[in-house]
Every structure is written in structure tokens, then in C-alpha cells.
């Protein structure tokens, strides 16, 4: 059985445009939320979002390409370049056909489609950009990363709404396990802060409302009232263990297993009994050959909607039973908000960093305990703790669930 380790990370998040600054903010318990600045949102009372700041696509990709590509693709390219550099993977020394790219996204190139739709409406079909097709698809970024890095191995995108990042990371790791690739550039990206999508999410009545943007996302708190859209990308270099060892790579953590499932219940709401997410967690534990009490930390989906946090807590209790009281469970969405298709990947990276550093990031804005949410949510302050096994859970519209497990790297 081929083992898979994490040898590089790349992060573009509302908390920072690299791994170091994002991690530092997470540990300091800082919020990355603010008022929407990306578009005119004056139609809303409290237009809150977690935007990536000071990001200039032209600094990370060819300036000519930067003008043409969607913001979402730019996030994906930036995080992929960071992750490869962090892994010190020299593509000129690799068999490029053994390096693949699998990145997930919930919606793909949101900005491009909407801009071009306006042109179609106002100026007619002949004015639609000839570059639209190649830049609007959810797999556009995986193709661009392959072109930019030369990675010629397996290449496609995975979408599972808000469970995308976890599903993509898990499937990429399976490709390494089964020998289709030795290295996968894997993760998720999203740039959903576009007026029509914001309007769509607002119409769903799913977005949080609060006068202070920094306090808008309050996972597991009794007063929580919705999620907030975030944006960015998370990329992990998943590498076959012997391949990593042979080149003396630094190892953050070992990938252990993933599980996915579907509630088969409702296109929007999670099933109240949490059976779907529980099933994904059980499958991941079974595939990792771990008992529930082996897990110390769960980076929860924890969106801060009344339903999600209650259902997720119930599912954790159902799977972990008495071990649930010893678990540390935090929602880092309290700081970076809901990065949609990027969320599972960013949170997978956070799990790898948690195992590596022995520090658990907190759930901030936790003030009022909810009787339905009665786990140890690592409230408000980071905690020093040895984490031997960490799990990241994700739950998406359409009933998709994913659970992915990492363990602290120990050469044995």
C-alpha cells in the first residue's frame, strides 16, 4: 500500500496571502471579515464578506494572462505556485507525467460568465469574448495550473458544492495511492463575491447578519444566524512517501483516508439527524483503520448556520460516542468565513499544520453556549496540544459530505 504525505502548502485566504500569515492570524484568533468592497453592495443593510486583500494577479501570473483569467483561476494559480515552492519540488527533475492536478471549485469562473452575460444582453452574441469558453469552466484552473507547471499527469476538477475541497483532496490522494501519479497538486479555490451570486445566497436567507462584520460568523454560539461568503484557495502537495523521502522533502503530515457520502435528503438543507456526515466520517475512519478515540482534533465544517452546527455536533456525538467529550472541535470559518469550494482544502491544510505545529486554532466569537452544541470548540484562544490524528469535515448543498483524515508525521 502506497502511503501519501503532505510536503507543500499554498494558501490565499481572507487572513493572509500565504501559509505563514494565514497561520499566524488563525493562531492569534483574528477575523478576516469586513464589508463588501468588491462590488456596489449598497442594496444590502450589512453586506459582509471575507475578501482576500491586496491580491494582485499580475504579481503571480504572467500579466497578459492575468488580464484574461478569472479571479478564481488566479487564486488557484497563486496557491499552486506557493505549494510547489514550499515543497521545493523542482518540476525539471520530475517525470511530469507522474505529477497531476486535481482542484475543486463550487462554481468555477463566476466573474467571467456574469461579465460576458452582460455583454450578450447589451451588445449581442457576436461581442461575447472568444476566450470565454476556455476561461469559464470549473476545470479551467486545473488546466491552467498544468500549463504553468508542466504537470502532465491526471487532471480534472471535482465539484461537490461546499464539500468540494475535501472531496478533491481525497480523490487526489487516492490517485497517488493507486499509482496513477506520484505527486498531486490538490485542493480547492473559489471567488464567489460577484453581485448575482451574492444576491442568490442572500435570497436563500442563509447569510449571517451582524452590525460588526468581525462578529458575523459565530459557529456553535447560541446567537449564530448564518454564514458569510469568503474566497481564496488552498493547495496541498500530496506526495508518495518514498518519493518524498528520496528527495529529502519536509513532511507536514501524513494523509490517511477520506470518506464521502450524500444525505439523499434535500437539495439545500442537511438532514437533521446528521446521518450523511456521520457516514462520511465512519467511512474515513474505516479506510484509515482508526478507532474514533484515535482522533484528537476535528476542523469542523461549522458554518455558523443554526442548522449546520447543530447537525454536525449531533453527527460527531453519534460517531465518536464517549470519545466525543475528549475531542477538540473548532471552526476556523469563524475567522476566514465560508470559502465554498476552497473551504475543505484550506481546512485540510489547517489540519496538516495543526499536526505539524502542535497548536489547535480556535473558534472565535464563541460567547453563548448552545445546549444543542455541547462539544469542546476550543473557544476564542488557540491551544497547545499534540495532535496525532486530525479530521476535516465538509458538508455541501446537494447533500454532499466529506471527511478527510491526516496524522502527525512519524517515520515508522
Amino acid at each position, binding site marked *: 500500500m502506497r502511503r501519501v504525505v503532505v510536503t507543500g502548502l499554498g494558501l490565499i485566504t481572507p487572513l493572509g496571502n500565504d501559509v505563514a500569515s494565514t497561520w499566524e492570524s488563525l493562531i492569534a484568533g483574528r477575523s478576516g471579515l469586513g464589508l463588501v468592497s468588491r462590488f456596489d453592495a449598497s442594496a444590502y443593510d450589512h453586506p459582509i464578506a471575507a475578501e482576500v486583500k491586496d491580491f494582485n494577479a499580475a504579481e503571480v501570473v504572467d500579466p497578459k494572462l492575468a488580464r484574461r483569467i478569472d479571479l478564481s483561476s488566479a487564486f488557484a494559480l497563486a496557491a499552486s505556485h506557493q505549494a510547489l515552492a514550499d515543497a521545493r519540488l523542482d518540476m525539471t527533475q520530475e517525470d511530469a507525467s507522474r505529477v497531476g492536478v486535481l482542484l475543486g471549485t463550487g462554481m468555477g469562473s463566476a466573474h467571467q460568465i456574469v461579465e460576458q452575460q452582460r455583454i450578450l444582453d447589451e451588445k449581442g452574441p457576436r461581442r461575447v469574448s472568444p476566450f470565454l469558453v476556455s476561461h469559464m469552466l470549473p476545470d*479551467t484552473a486545473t*488546466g491552467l495550473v498544468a500549463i504553468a507547471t508542466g504537470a502532465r499527469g491526471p*487532471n480534472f476538477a471535482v465539484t461537490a458544492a461546499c464539500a468540494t475541497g475535501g472531496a478533491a483532496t481525497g480523490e487526489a490522494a487516492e490517485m497517488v495511492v493507486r499509482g496513477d501519479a506520484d505527486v498531486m497538486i490538490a485542493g480547492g479555490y473559489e471567488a464567489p463575491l460577484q453581485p448575482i451570486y451574492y444576491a442568490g445566497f*442572500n435570497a436563500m436567507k442563509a447569510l449571517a447578519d451582524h452590525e460588526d462584520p468581525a462578529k458575523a460568523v459565530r459557529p456553535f454560539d447560541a446567537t449564530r444566524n448564518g454564514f458569510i461568503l469568503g474566497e481564496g484557495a488552498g493547495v496541498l502537495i500530496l506526495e508518495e512517501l518514498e518519493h518524498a523521502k528520496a528527495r529529502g522533502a519536509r513532511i507536514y503530515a501524513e494523509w490517511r483516508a477520506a470518506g464521502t457520502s*450524500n444525505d*439523499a435528503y434535500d437539495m439545500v438543507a442537511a438532514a437533521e439527524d446528521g446521518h450523511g456526515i456521520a457516514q462520511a466520517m465512519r467511512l474515513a475512519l474505516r479506510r484509515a483503520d482508526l478507532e474514533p478515540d484515535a482522533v484528537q482534533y476535528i476542523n469542523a465544517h461549522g458554518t455558523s448556520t443554526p442548522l449546520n452546527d447543530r447537525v454536525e455536533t449531533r453527527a460527531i456525538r453519534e460517531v465518536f460516542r464517549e470519545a466525543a467529550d475528549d475531542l477538540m472541535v473548532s471552526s476556523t470559518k469563524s475567522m476566514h468565513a465560508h470559502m465554498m469550494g476552497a473551504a475543505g482544502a484550506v481546512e485540510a491544510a489547517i489540519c496538516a499544520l495543526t499536526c505539524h505545529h502542535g497548536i489547535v486554532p480556535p473558534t472565535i466569537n464563541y460567547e453563548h453556549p448552545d445546549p444543542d452544541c455541547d462539544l469542546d470548540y476550543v473557544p476564542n484562544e488557540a491551544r497547545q496540544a499534540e495532535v496525532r490524528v486530525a479530521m476535516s469535515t465538509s458538508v455541501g448543498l*446537494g447533500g454532499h459530505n466529506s471527511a478527510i483524515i491526516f496524522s502527525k508525521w512519524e517515520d515508522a
Partner: protein
Amino acid sequence: MPEERRVVVTGIGILSAVGVGRDETWKNLLAGTNGIARTTLVEVDDLPSQVSGEVPDFDYSTYIDRKGARRMDRFTQLAVCAAGEALDQAGLDTAAEGDHIGCMIGSGIGGIGTLEAEFDVFFHKGPNRVSPLLVPMFIPDMAAGQTSIRFGLRGPNYNTVSACASGADAIGTAFEVVRRGDAVAMVAGGSEACVTRMSIAAFANSQALSTNNDPNTASRPFDIGRDGFVIGEGAGILVLEDREHAEARGAQIYAEIVSYGQSADAFHVTAPSENGEGAARAMNLAISKAGIAASDIDYVNAHGTSTPLNDKFETMSIKTVFGEGAYAVPVSSSKSMIGHTLGAAGGIESAITILSIRDQKVHPTIHLLEPDPNCDLDYIPEGARDLGIKYAMSNSLGFGGHNSSLIFSRYEG
């Protein structure tokens, strides 16, 4: 380590321009029926491309009630109905085994029709009138999501996107899911409903679509006069099942899925890599993973889009892989009759490849009147043919440089 599981096909559902349902589609393909006609789903008078492969008289009511249908984009409706057909044939006990049956349905762009309609609302009536269902109807994973809800499939579930290879990657990924034991069966394939003004305008302006508006010659893969693809829609969904599980319940087995190879060109966002190098790598990977030789492949269902570049480079890649043997392998393009169904293509064409194995019969490439000298293989231009098939391959090649090859074989126990 446990012995590797084998995976068989126990259900097939197809909705295409030549038929609503598996049997009608297959009968018409064998007869060489052209499904391309003037577009009726949207106004096309001001568009450069005015023909398409629409699913004729699509009626969702067998599997979806009217209220449910209003909450689904057409690509999701097509997927649910094709999945229903496949599941009806397979006869799986979804009520008892739903936890162990998953779903993967690829789509290139998802609910683009819904997005276009809601953009109209947004633009003319303001943000507060946008539907709360915009996001859940548009996102491309919803075909897999709604299919799971409709049929109670609670196992592994997501959507793969790789442009025109999406459906093939869904089937390949689902095959690996069953093989590694994460599910006993997967409902897998592709779905697309892209006959919309935005899709047509965008593909036309990228010079990919045929501007020949004569439905009888617009889609003509490998012909010297080809000038682009004809957009199509539809869904092709399979039930993939652990062989032992299928045998134990006495299921009818149509074929075995034996291998999946995937590669990236890492070359250009729209053009295929020089000489079809990436496509050749995917085919070679699939052949070597199957533990067979290229000469064992008896039939290739080509990507064959009818664009000048694709058909030339795909032909070259087949020659790279098969060597001199390339001239002895019959190759046909279903797109000559149903158009290019984008993310659904890999699903529909896998289904067609399996039916070819079941019946030991291959369908023709129609509209191939004057061969391109660069395309000199046996494309079965004269009509359907009886053919002894042990192994058959389905190729899918997508914008962005995604290449997928699936190999199916006659099931012999």
C-alpha cells in the same frame, strides 16, 4: 491486501438527440439516423450556429414530479431521468443498500440555462428578485445531488469536471471507488443541457462551432469539409457494480469496465497538444493498466468532434498508440449523429461502447462523404457493422487539455 475488485456494468440510461432512452438511441445509431436539426430550445436567428442536437420531446414525468422539476435545471432533469432508466434495468435494492451506492455525474458547466434566466431577472428587476434557488440549481454537482435524493443513494457522491471529458472522468472515478471498496455500486456518467444562447455564442466566438447550418452536413467528423462541432445535449448514465455483488444477485451484466487512463496536455487552454501526444498518453495508460496490448482493442468510440484539429490529432494519437494496427481497428464517432454533448459525451459514448460490446455491432460515422487525407482510418462510413469485440475503448478529450480513455470488455465471468 484483498484481491482487487472487478467492476461490471448492470444498467444503462441514455437521453440523446436520436432517442429518449437506451433502446431508441441505440437502434437509431445503428441505423445511422441524424439527430441534428434546427435549434428550437432558444432563439438562434442572430447566432452564427443555428443547428444542434436537442433531446426530442424530453418528458421528465416518468421520474420527476412537476414541483421537483421546477427546482432542477434541465441538465439535472436529464441526469435524473437517465439515472432512473439505468437503475430500473439494474434492479438494485436501493432501499436496503442505499448507504453503499454512490453517484458521480460529470457536467461541463452545470445549470447555465438557469444562470442566464436569473441574470435577466437580476439585470432588469434588481438583486432582491434573484431566486433563492439560483445557486443550488446552477452548481454543477447538483445532478449527482438530485439523483441521490430521488433514488436514495447515500454512498460516495460528487461531480467531476474536465470540460468535454467530464462524463468519462465521472465513470473512471466511480470505477475506482467501487474497485477500492468504498461502494458496492455507483450510478455514474455525464449530463449537459447547454443549448443556450450564452453557450452557443461563447463556443461560436471561440471558433469551435460549425457555422454550417445545414443539419445534414454540419457534424461530419473526419470529413474534409468539417468546420467545427455541433452542440448537443443529453445524458448517459451507467450503473457500475462490484462483480461479486452483481453475480450474487443474478444481475444482467452488459460488460465489464476494466481500465481508466487520464492525462493532461499541459499545453494550451483550447488547442490539443501537438500530434495528439496527451491523448496518446491517456490511451497508453489505460491499455497498460488493463494489462493488455493495443492490438487487443477491437473498437474505438472516438471523441471525433468534427473540429479540424481534434479529428486530425486524435487520428494521429490512435496511430501513435496502435502503430500499423491502427488501420485494422474500426473507429466511429457518435457525434456525427448526436452532436457534441460536452460533459455528457463521455457518459453517452461509454454507454454506446458497452452496447456495441453487448450486441457485437458497431454504429457508423455518418456524413463522412469525402475523407480528409489526414484522417485515414476505418471510420465505418458505410453503415453499421457486425464486429467481434472483446475489448473496446471510449476516448474523451476536453478543452483545458484533459484526456480520458476508458476500456470496457465483453463479460465472460
